[in-house]
């Protein structure tokens, strides 16, 4: 098991029980990290690496694997890759790789901000047409399936429709059309010719050859230069992985936010996926790439999203910038005609029925016009950049503490421009008190009288004080019950939003404005049944919310949907989130509350414990745990197999249950019928695991090492392309970046969490039992740096970036230190970011050091790798 981009023992100590159990059973744990942490302490091998160099390391592994004797000798690898990945697929002739263009892919263009919303912040953008499969029609394919970032700067001419009564009437009259759409015919019309392939994997334009060329320069020597990881240790990792992959064995990767919080975080994960596909470690027991999510329900918050760019079940959020004017257009733009996503019209219509209930009809496109549309990047940094410009009037802040968040002085500048702010939390957080206790107010830089924001504080319940579901990192929903009643007027988040929604509906009752029709028609009834006593006055019935999520037959609301296969696009089914459909299949069967583990000693999937979406599958794409003929790869790794008539096994098969392994693809069909018996990756249009990613990513079809936005060195791999050519950077006086190799900021710094505290400390710095365990903010520095700078253990030091200066105590240790990067001695330092000015344990806000730079795919910030200076204070 490789843990990389994660400090699992410290940040996921409860889940870390299982790697330790595996270790007792003989598994080896490898930890690749800039620091020697509590995870490294129990790992079999710790490999130091510079923060932000992960793709160089993983790319090195890919290159090593492809050229290794073992990979080329054991037929397993070739068989897995040929059958289950897109290795054989040919890519367009126009495609040019980073190898051809000195670190860039074909299609790069300047980015022009949208006049509607100037906060998308791309420094460049790719036209992705040349990255598409060669379908033999001589045309670069459409860039279908991207999350809309490509079009972000291209406002649709009719985006304003619906904002005036006239516009709305036009819509209601059916001018937008589509209510009589035959969705099956529509989806069929989207079919394109199948991609050309070369099963021998020899064609220079096939994915396999492109991948080989792309990673050829990632040699062990280059890995050492870029990452600072000793070559011998790198090779040891490669050998262990190769030894432990194949028919009989599988290796797993685990990562967390130290892979995501980069300007190329998505590509780091994509790189691991590529490596794991090459090694045959996807879709098999003991394999995979485990995303360790941040807290108990963060997975749920992307499934039923608090994300701006998607709606329930990972459908794209309707956008004013895409061809999303009507429901038909939305379906046309978002549906893949082949693979399981061909069912998107059913998911979408059932979702709209859950939004607007009886008001959603075929005639009004199931209320599609009422649904809000996005106009650009509305993620955290974009919104705060806009807020700092006075473009945001009010904010509900629940479960977040932005006053201590990224480039925190910029975020607080945003907070100061708000007219109103609602904070709902367990304690008075920094965000609730920024207007009287933030450093800039305390030191007089900002005058308290000049802050006009009206701040409302709502006391919140703790999780044990109400019932509901968690969705954990394994996509598993687990119901939790109320253990104690909250004190005073503390209320749940569901209480807050439910009652807010009821008030808004009341407020809009008499509005004739088109934009308010959504609120008027939204289905909003989770009232407890008469005679039942809610735990708090006005608390909605949590099980009714779960029913809404699971779905029911529209005209028989007490009849729950058994699973997403039952969904229809005619409005007869209502389902908020198709991926959760089946978790509550009958009023007396809340499967999320099931607690039936398998008996000890069985290699089962514990299907009776909770409910994992989709369809209670525990290992995704598990068809590939059997070979092309449907037989288990080995007895030891038996998981799902073909018994002659159907797919069976320990898990719920992630495949059409009666489709034989030898079934050919049907070029005339749509959905799963279009895929062959070996097309195991059923959510992909071609049924293949993607080594090369033609659609869905905006920053390249293959992972490439770019330096972080702030780096002490020139990119050793591509000297002409320093950092991602399409990363996001929000220009602002408060958001300056250090130049490459700036001697004023010579050290690489990373930020992280400790077991003893939680996130910004909003929940932990108030608890004496926790604060005594980690009472003060510190910076971990190596002994060499301490000697150079004359810093002794526990000395007060000053840490500076172009954005801020903060102070902390030094913790001098050999668990972190000097790395040799591209011929330079680079000191690596690190800081936990749990502190702020409220609570029992207080300290400077580490996030004031970080910058508003982000990943172009998902807009996450780069808090894991930047540069700083450290001096004795």
């Amino acid at each position, binding site marked *: 098991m490789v843990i990389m981009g994660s400090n699992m023992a410290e940040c996921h*100590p409860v889940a870390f029980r299982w790697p330790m159990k595996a270790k007792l059973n003989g598994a080896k744990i490898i930890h690749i990290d800039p620091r*020697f942490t509590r995870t490294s*302490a129990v790992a079999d091998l710790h490999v130091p690496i510079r923060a932000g160099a992960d793709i160089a390391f993983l790319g090195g592994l890919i290159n090593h694997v492809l050229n290794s004797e073992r990979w080329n000798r054991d037929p397993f690898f070739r068989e897995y890759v040929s059958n289950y990945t897109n290795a054989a697929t040919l890519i367009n002739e126009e495609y040019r790789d980073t190898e051809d263009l000195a670190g860039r892919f074909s299609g790069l263009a300047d980015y022009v901000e949208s006049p509607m919303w100037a906060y998308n912040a791309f420094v460049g953008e790719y036209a992705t047409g040349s990255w598409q499969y060669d379908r033999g029609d001589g045309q670069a394919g459409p860039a279908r399936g991207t999350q809309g970032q490509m079009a972000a700067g291209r406002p649709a001419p009719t985006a304003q429709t619906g904002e005036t009564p006239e516009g709305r009437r036009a819509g209601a009259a059916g001018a937008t059309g589509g209510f009589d759409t035959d969705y099956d015919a529509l989806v069929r019309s989207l079919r394109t010719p199948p991609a050309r392939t070369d099963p021998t994997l020899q064609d220079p334009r096939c994915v396999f050859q492109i991948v080989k060329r792309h990673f050829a320069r990632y040699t062990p020597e280059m890995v050492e230069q870029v990452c600072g990881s000793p070559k011998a240790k790198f090779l040891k990792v490669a050998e262990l992985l190769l030894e432990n992959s194949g028919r009989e064995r599988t290796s797993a990767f685990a990562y967390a936010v130290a892979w995501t919080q980069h300007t190329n975080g998505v590509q780091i994960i994509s790189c691991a996926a590529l490596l794991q596909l090459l090694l045959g470690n996807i879709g098999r027991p003991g394999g995979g790439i485990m995303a360790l999510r941040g807290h108990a329900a963060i997975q749920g918050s992307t499934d039923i999203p608090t994300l701006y760019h998607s709606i329930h079940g990972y459908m794209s959020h309707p956008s004013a910038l895409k061809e999303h004017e009507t429901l038909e257009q939305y379906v046309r733009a978002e549906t893949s005609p082949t693979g399981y996503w061909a069912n998107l019209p059913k998911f979408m219509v059932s979702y709209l029925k859950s939004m607007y209930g009886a008001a959603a009809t075929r005639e009004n496109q199931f209320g599609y016009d009422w649904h809000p549309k996005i106009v650009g990047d509305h993620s955290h940094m974009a919104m705060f950049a806009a807020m700092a410009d006075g473009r945001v009037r009010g904010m509900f802040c629940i479960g977040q503490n932005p006053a201590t968040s990224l480039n925190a002085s910029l975020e607080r500048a945003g907070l100061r421009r708000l007219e109103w702010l609602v904070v709902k939390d367990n304690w008075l957080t920094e965000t609730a008190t920024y207007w009287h206790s933030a450093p800039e107010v305390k030191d007089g830089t900002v005058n308290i009288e000049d802050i006009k924001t009206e701040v409302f504080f709502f006391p919140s319940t703790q999780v044990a004080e109400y019932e509901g579901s968690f969705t954990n990192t394994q996509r598993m929903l687990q119901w939790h019950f109320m253990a104690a009643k909250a004190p005073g007027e503390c209320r749940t988040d569901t209480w807050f939003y439910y009652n807010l929604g009821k008030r808004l509906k009341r407020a809009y009752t008499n509005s004739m404005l088109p934009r308010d029709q959504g609120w008027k028609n939204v289905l909003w009834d989770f009232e407890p049944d008469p005679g039942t006593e809610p735990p708090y006055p006005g608390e909605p019935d949590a099980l009714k919310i779960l029913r809404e999520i699971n779905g029911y037959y529209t005209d028989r609301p007490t009849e729950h949907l058994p699973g997403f296969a039952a969904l229809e696009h005619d409005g007869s089914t209502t389902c908020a989130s198709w991926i959760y459909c089946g978790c509550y299949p009958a009023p007396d069967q809340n499967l999320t509350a099931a607690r039936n583990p398998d008996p000890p000693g069985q290699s089962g999937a514990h299907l009776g414990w909770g409910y994992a979406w989709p369809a209670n599958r525990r290992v995704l794409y598990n068809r590939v745990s059997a070979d092309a003929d449907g037989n288990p790869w080995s007895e030891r790794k038996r998981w799902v197999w073909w018994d002659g008539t159907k797919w069976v096994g320990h898990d719920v098969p992630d495949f059409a249950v009666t489709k034989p392994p030898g079934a050919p693809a049907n070029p005339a069909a749509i959905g799963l019928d279009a895929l062959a018996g070996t097309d195991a990756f059923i959510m992909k249009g071609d049924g293949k695991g993607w080594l090369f990613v033609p659609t869905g990513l905006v920053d390249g079809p293959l992972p490439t090492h770019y330096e972080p936005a702030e780096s002490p060195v020139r990119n050793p791999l591509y000297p002409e392309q320093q950092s991602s050519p399409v990363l996001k950077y929000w220009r602002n006086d408060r958001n300056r970046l250090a130049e490459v190799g700036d001697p004023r900021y010579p050290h690489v710094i990373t930020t992280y969490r400790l077991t003893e505290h939680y996130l910004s400390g909003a929940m932990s710095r108030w608890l004496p*039992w926790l604060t005594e365990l980690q009472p003060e903010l510190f910076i971990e520095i190596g002994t060499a740096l301490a000697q150079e700078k004359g810093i002794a253990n526990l000395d007060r030091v000053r840490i500076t970036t172009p954005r801020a200066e903060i102070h902390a105590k030094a913790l001098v240790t050999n*668990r972190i*230190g000097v790395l040799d990067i591209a011929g330079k001695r680079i000191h690596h330092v690190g800081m936990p970011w749990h502190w702020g000015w409220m609570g029992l344990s207080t300290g400077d806000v580490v996030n004031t050091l970080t910058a508003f730079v982000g990943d172009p795919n998902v807009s996450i910030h780069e808090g894991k790798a930047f540069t700083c200076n450290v001096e004795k204070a």
Partner: protein
Amino acid sequence: MDHPPLPILPQTAVTTEPMGFYTDTTVCIGCKACEVACKSWNLLPAADGGVTEMSGDSYDNTRQLDGTHWRHVKFIEQFPTEYNGRWLLMSDVCKHCVQAPCLEVCPTGAIIRTEFDTVVIQSDACNGCRACIAACPFGVIGMNDVAGTAQKCTLCYDRISVGLEPACSKACPTDSIQFGTISDLRERAQQRVEQLHANGVNDAYLYGADPNGPLGGLNSFYLLVDEPEVYGLPRNPQLPTRNLMESAVLSTAGAVAAVGLGLVGLRKRRMDEISDERGATSDE
């Protein structure tokens, strides 16, 4: 925060099989869940209300076992050079010695041996004389200022009396702390040592598991991979009475020597101050 009274032992207490802890330090991840679970169950206050300073000794900020810290996780950094070494993590607790020095010296009989063969201080019978604190060769016991008595781990007597596992082992995510009958634990621990030896960890051994060893064996014993002293454990813990005469002589001699050294030290410090003052003057 009031300490709950410890349960009064039933008069007809039936002796069960000896129970205790086996702590496998090789799977400890230093999460300190044991420390928090112990405090939570036993309602022990944080030091200074939780407003304290970091120690600078790795991630150890509670530093020791005492009257309000009945579990303590040690962080031992062994790194000769940067990125090169190991980090030993160990959750420490009362050893519940089979021949317990604290029990032997307690003048009021407040310290008793329970039916589980564990050692418990009954707060209501403790007069706070601190003899046990001095007698414990492991430095486990300390005064609890809230209760005004000497306190230490009870091996969750109140929990195990009703068939529950102690709070610390219950909370331990990796089963570094295991609770059970001593015979079971010894067997498990021995197997683990053999497994580690087979995997090339030849330094692994059990500390305190030998009934013929010091203090008749410890009902809380450890799997270690370095010398006992590295973990702050005595190599050969003794009952205080064994050395009563010897230690009396030694302590008298020691006191004399200490006074002598102290005088030398004072003189040395004064000399340094004088030379510093001179240096400062000459700099001007």
